[in-house]
């Protein structure tokens, strides 16, 4: 049994949890028929190869530092999970989301939407080309700023492997002040959300590379392999 680094539902420093975290105990069901329920099939979600390149979704190049984010989606046995859907979304280089809900007075970039998706390759690898997102303010506490981050949504083989999380950048000075990241009580858990700068992934005179592996719950092994 591995360590569980999940944040609690209730973390009052992140104020939105106060009226949304369940107050009654969660009911635990047997893993065999709940957690190991096979995930759905995603033929309906349109995934095109160009969806993994967030810098070429418009007529011009987006502003900002061009970056590559790549890594593997691994199961609990450390095996790469092939063919699973990875979705990302993020703010632009100025720290502004295209989303109409975002009213931060930083400029939108007509050449950047900030949404991408891909399917992992046979070894469970994913790769996105994008720009480094900016930090942005929010109203959780006085003078609150979210560290730069990219949102990730991953499916994996089972109901319990479904994961929505955020990837951060190494050395970001805002991380110690961020109640969303700090909701994870153990520093080892927080470290799992921070990508590593990777010179080998970096492309000369083109883009900085950041490597980030994702481990989801559940095994992709067939019952016969277990």
């Amino acid at each position, binding site marked *: 049994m*591995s*360590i*569980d*680094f*999940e*944040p*609690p*539902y209730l973390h009052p420093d*992140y104020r*939105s*949890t*106060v*009226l*949304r*975290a*369940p107050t*009654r105990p*969660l*009911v*635990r*069901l047997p893993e065999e*028929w*709940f*957690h190991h*329920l096979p*995930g*759905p*099939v*995603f033929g*309906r*979600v349109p995934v095109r190869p160009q969806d993994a390149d967030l810098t070429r979704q418009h007529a011009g190049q987006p502003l900002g530092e061009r970056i590559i984010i790549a890594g593997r989606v691994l199961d*609990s046995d*450390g095996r790469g999970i092939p063919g699973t859907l990875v*979705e990302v*979304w993020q703010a632009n280089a100025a720290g502004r*989301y295209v*989303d*109409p*809900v*975002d009213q931060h007075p930083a400029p939108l970039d007509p050449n950047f*939407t*900030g*949404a991408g998706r891909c399917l992992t390759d046979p070894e469970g690898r994913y790769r996105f080309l994008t720009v480094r997102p900016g930090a942005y303010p929010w109203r959780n506490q006085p003078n609150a700023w979210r560290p730069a981050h990219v*949102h990730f949504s991953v499916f994996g083989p089972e109901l319990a492997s*479904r*994961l*929505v*999380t*955020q990837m951060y950048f190494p050395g970001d000075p805002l991380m110690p002040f961020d109640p*969303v*990241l700090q*909701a994870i009580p153990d520093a*080892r*858990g*927080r470290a*799992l*959300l921070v990508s590593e700068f990777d010179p080998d992934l970096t492309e000369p005179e083109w883009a900085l590379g950041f490597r980030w592996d994702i*481990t*989801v*719950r559940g095994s992709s092994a067939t019952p016969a392999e277990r």
Partner: protein
Amino acid sequence: MGAETAAAPTPSQTVGPFFGFALPFPGDAEAVAAGPGSVRVEGQVLDGEGKPVADAILELWEGEQFARCRTDAEGAFHFLALQPAARAGQAPHFELTVFARGLLRQLATRIYLPDEEDANRADPALEAVPADRRETLIARRSGGVLLFDVRLQGDRETVFFAL
């Protein structure tokens, strides 16, 4: 990093408020086209003050069916799916997963059918739930529509299952 830590699952973070431009895709609330055997599921997500949760995204899972719906300003969501099947000794049900701003990790619940009383009585998941809270997992039927509200807190707080 020790071997034990290396195998730890990547922790969750909130879906945040700004996912609406990225996660929905065309027709995603409909697992099937309307027709024989299909059922519409409608409901509202409510917070601890009974206010609508306008920035949630829900996923409906059942067999090979998958659908996803973002809540609107009233916290309302809807799905269209085939009637769920009874599987492995369990009453017919949908798995329902809830993501939202303020949820640091998703919540998992189930939608059972009101007209499957015998099957529901024998269902092992409903049996694991305190008797006075089971009704939070059973949809109401109004015409051809299944109504199912998700209450994150409060007297009738929906039962959620540990992931």
